[in-house]
C-alpha cells in the first residue's frame, strides 16, 4: 500500500502543483511559478553541521564562530536563488526523434534555449527513469539527447520530464516538471533469422521472372522518383552533370511481392507475425524489390523506396494500437 500511496501523492502533486496535463505547446518557458526549490540530502547534512557549529559557538562565546556560521548559512540561502536563476528563463522545444526498432535505444531530443548572457552549467534532464547531464551555453540553443531503451512497439512518448540543477553548491536542488511534445515511433523488432521471402500465390509469375533474367541484373535507367531508394540512384550519371536517374534491375522489375499477414504460419502470435513481416520488409527493401504489405483490414500499394518502407513499418508498429495511431 505505501507504494500506491506515494504514487497517488505524486499524481496529486503533478496535478495540483506542477499542473502536468498533456503535452505542452512549444516553447515551454521556465518562468518562476514553474521552478521549485528544495534542499538536497547534502544540503540537509550541511544544515546539521551548521547547527552543531552554532551550538559550539554559543557554548564557547565565539563571536567569529557565529559570524562564520551565519556567513555559510547566508551563502547557502543565496545558492538557492542561484539554483533558481540557473533554470529561470530557459525555453524548451521538442527536437527531432528518429524512429527505432524495438529493443534499440531511443534518442529523445529536446532543444533547450538559453536566451541569457551566462552559461547554465550542471543541468540534468530526466524522463522515463533515464537522465542526462548537460549545460546550456550563453545565448544559444542546445540539443539535448536523452537515450531511453525501447520496450514495446508503437509510440513512445517522453511524457513527464524533469529538468533540474544542483548548481552551485549541490546543497539546493531547483527543478521544473514539464511535458514536451516529443514522441518516438518504435517499430517491431525484426525477426533475427527470418525464413526466406514468401512466394505465395504469385509464385509462378515470380519464378518465371527469376528464371529469365536472374537476380538484380541491371536493366536500364529511368527518371528518378522521390520514393526511390537512394541506393538505386545513378550517382555516376549525376556526378557527370546528368539528370537524376534511377537504375532498374531486371530481377526487381517483374516481381510483385505481397507480404501477407494471413499467409503466415497460423501458429504464430501477433508480435511474432509483426516481427517477421518487419524483417521481410527490410529484406525486400534491401534487395530493391517492389512489395506490398497486407494486414487484416488494410493493404498497402505495391511500391519500393525508403518512404514506402517507413510507411509499411509504421503500419506494423501501430498495428492494433488504434489509440496510438492519432
Amino acid at each position, binding site marked *: 500500500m505505501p507504494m500506491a500511496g506515494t504514487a497517488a501523492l505524486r499524481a496529486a502533486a503533478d496535478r495540483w502543483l506542477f499542473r502536468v496535463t498533456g503535452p505542452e505547446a512549444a516553447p515551454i518557458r521556465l518562468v518562476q511559478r514553474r521552478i521549485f526549490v528544495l534542499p538536497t540530502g547534502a544540503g540537509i547534512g550541511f544544515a546539521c553541521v551548521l547547527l552543531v557549529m552554532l551550538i559550539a559557538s554559543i557554548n564557547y562565546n565565539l563571536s567569529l564562530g557565529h559570524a562564520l556560521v551565519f*556567513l555559510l548559512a547566508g551563502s547557502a540561502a543565496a545558492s538557492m536563488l542561484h539554483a533558481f536563476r540557473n533554470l529561470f528563463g530557459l525555453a524548451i522545444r521538442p527536437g527531432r526523434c528518429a524512429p527505432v526498432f524495438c529493443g534499440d535505444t531511443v534518442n529523445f531530443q529536446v532543444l533547450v534555449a538559453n536566451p541569457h548572457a551566462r552559461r547554465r552549467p*550542471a543541468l540534468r534532464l530526466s524522463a522515463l527513469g533515464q537522465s542526462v547531464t548537460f549545460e546550456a551555453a550563453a545565448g544559444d540553443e542546445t540539443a539535448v539527447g536523452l537515450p531511453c531503451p525501447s520496450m514495446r512497439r508503437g509510440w513512445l512518448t517522453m511524457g513527464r520530464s524533469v529538468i533540474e540543477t544542483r548548481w552551485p553548491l549541490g546543497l539546493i536542488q531547483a527543478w521544473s516538471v514539464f511535458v514536451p511534445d516529443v514522441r518516438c515511433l518504435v517499430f517491431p523488432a525484426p525477426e533475427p533469422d527470418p525464413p526466406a521471402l514468401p512466394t505465395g500465390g504469385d509464385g509462378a509469375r515470380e519464378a518465371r521472372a527469376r528464371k529469365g533474367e536472374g537476380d538484380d541484373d541491371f536493366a536500364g535507367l529511368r527518371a528518378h522518383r522521390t520514393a526511390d531508394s537512394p541506393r538505386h540512384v545513378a550517382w555516376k550519371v549525376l556526378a557527370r552533370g546528368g539528370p537524376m536517374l534511377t537504375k532498374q534491375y531486371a530481377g526487381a522489375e517483374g516481381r510483385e511481392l505481397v507480404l501477407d499477414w494471413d499467409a503466415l504460419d497460423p501458429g504464430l502470435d501477433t508480435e511474432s507475425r509483426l516481427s517477421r513481416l518487419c524483417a521481410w520488409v527490410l529484406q525486400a527493401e534491401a534487395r530493391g524489390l517492389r512489395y506490398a504489405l497486407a494486414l487484416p483490414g488494410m493493404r498497402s500499394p505495391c511500391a519500393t523506396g525508403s518512404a514506402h518502407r517507413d510507411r509499411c513499418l509504421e503500419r506494423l508498429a501501430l498495428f492494433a494500437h488504434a489509440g496510438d495511431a492519432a
Partner: protein
Amino acid sequence: MWLPGWISVVCALLLTWRGLLLWQGSRPPPRALLLVITLALAVGVRIEFGHFFGKDPGVALLALLLGLKLLETQAARDIRAGVLLCLFLQLAIFFEDQSLPVAALALCGTLLALGALIALVDPAARLGAQLRGAASLLAQGLPFMLALFLLFPRIQGPLWGLPADAFSARTGLSDTMTPGSISALGTSPAIAFRVRFEGTPPAQNQRYWRGPVLTAYDGRTWRARPARESDTPFYTPSGARIDYALTLEPHNQRWLLALDYPGEAQPKARYSHDFLALSPRPVQTRTRFTLSAYPSTPTGLAEDAATLAAATRLPPGSNPRSAALAAELAAGTRSHAETLARVIAHLRATPLRYTLQPPLLGSHPADDFLFETQSGFCEHFASAFVVLMRAAGVPARVVTGYQGGEINPVDGYLVVRQSDAHAWAEVWLAGRGWVRVDPTALAAPERIDDGMASALAADSALPLLLRADMRWLRDLRHQWEAVSNAWNQHVLGYNPERQRELLERLGLSGRGIAALVALLAAAVLAIFLALFAWATWRRRPRDPLQKAWARFCRKLGRAGLARARWEGPADYGNRIAAALPDQAQALREICATYARLRYGPPCAASALRALNKRIDGIRLQ
C-alpha cells in the same frame, strides 16, 4: 600551532602522502591499513590528553580525521565530508584566536571551501570561474550574515559546563612575587586591557591599576593572603571621581585591575578587604567593565589589628643588614610618617640603578639589592622598601598591578600592556590609612612619569617597539591596534547586552526576543526579495558586432546622416559615401565589413577589433 607537535607532524605527513598519491595518480591505500592508522592515532590522542572529551583532544582528533579522510577520498560524498570537516576545523581555530588576521584567513578558507563545492557540481568550469562563483555567493551571503549577526537572539554561553581545559594557558600577573629569582623581566607587548576615560585621562604617574596585594613574606617570596570580600567597598568613596570603561583581556583570574580606588562597577563586582575589585568568576572572555575610581579616598583608617600585624611580620633572621639599617633610621623618630620620610630620603641618597637585567640575588635579597648589586626593577625596589619599613615597625605591603599605559592617538583608548606590569608599596600611617609609595620612582622617576623606555639607558636591549626612536613603527602599531580594538569592541564584544542596547537604540526596548525575531525575519525577507529581483533580472546578451554597428550609425547620425530603419548596410554605405566623398572608401568598407561579418560565418574577435578601429578612425568635422 596550537596542537601538540606530534599531531601537527602526523597531519603534515598525511597531507604529503595524499599529495604524493595525487601526483603519481595511484590508488588510495587499503581500508584496513587506514583503519589501523586511525586506531593508532586515536590511542595516541588518548595518551596525550588522557581523555577524548574536551576542546583540545577534540580538535586534535578532528585534524587527524581530516588528514585520513582526504587519504581515502574518491567519491563526491567524501569530498563533501572533507569540506565539512574543514569548516569544523576552521571553527576550532577560533577557540584560540579571533583576531582580524585570523578572520581574514577564515574568509579565504570559506571561499576555497565553497569553490570546492562548486567544482564538484560544475567540474567543467575553469578554476577562476569557480572561485568567482564562490566569491559571488559569499558576497550575497554577507547581508544575511550581517542581519543574523546583529539580530539572531544571542544567548550567553556556556550552555553546559565547559571542559576544564577551555581557558588554559593565559598570561598575566600572578599572586606571588620572588624578586631576584629571574634575571630578565619579560617585556611582552601583549595587551592586558584597554581603557576609555569619560573625561580627561589622569596623568601617567597617577595611573596605578591595582592587582594582587602581597602581604605574606617568607624571606624570598611575597604571597597574597586570602582577603575578605563584600558587595560594597571597605571604604567610603569620596573626593574627585573618574569614570572609565575597561575592556579586560581574558586572564583567567578574578581581579579587574581597577584604578585606585574603585567605587561602582557594571557589571556588578565584588570588593576585597585589600581594595581590589573582583569579578564574581574568573574572566575567561574579553569583557568590558564600566568602572569609577575615587583616587583621593582615604582607605583603611580603621584597619583591623590582624591585618596590621600581618603587614609588619618579617621572617626572623632574614635580611639582617636591612633590619639593622631600618632600626638605625627609625631610632628617635616620633611617628611612622617621620620614619617613612627618613627611609625615602635614605633610598634617594643610595645610588640605585633601574635595569631590566639585574644580577641574581642571594638568600637575603633585600640586603643584596640595597648593599651589593644596587640595581633592579620595580619588584626589587618595592620588596626592599617594604622590608625596610617592616623592620622599622611600620605596617607595609607590596601591591602588584600595572602602571601607566599608553594613549593610542588614533582612537583615544589607553592601552596597557603586559610590559606595563609594576610593583609598588603601601604603608599604613595612623590617621591617614594606607598610603601609596612607589620606591621605583625614587631611583627612576622617568619610569613612572614617561614609561619604561625612558627609564632605561639608551643602549639597553629593549624590544623594538618600546624604543623611542622607532617612531613610525609605533605609529603603525597604533593604527593597527586601534583597528584591532574596534574589532574587539564591536565584533568580538557583541553579546546579549550589546544586542539589548541595539534594540533600545532602535526604540524597541523591552520587547525582547519577539522583537528580534520579527526584525530578523523582516531583514531576511528583504534580502531575499532583493536577491530574487537580481535573479529574475534579465540581461540580454549584447552582441558586440551589433554594438559596433549601432555606434557607427550613431556617429553618422550626429552628422545628420542617420540610418533609416529600412536601410541595409550596402544601401546605407552607398548613401553616406555619396554624402561624404572624402571618406567614401572607408565608409563603404565599414558597411561591407559589417554585412560580411553579420551574414557570413561567425565573426572572429580580431575582425571585430579591426572593425571597431576603423569606426574610431572616421572623423566627422
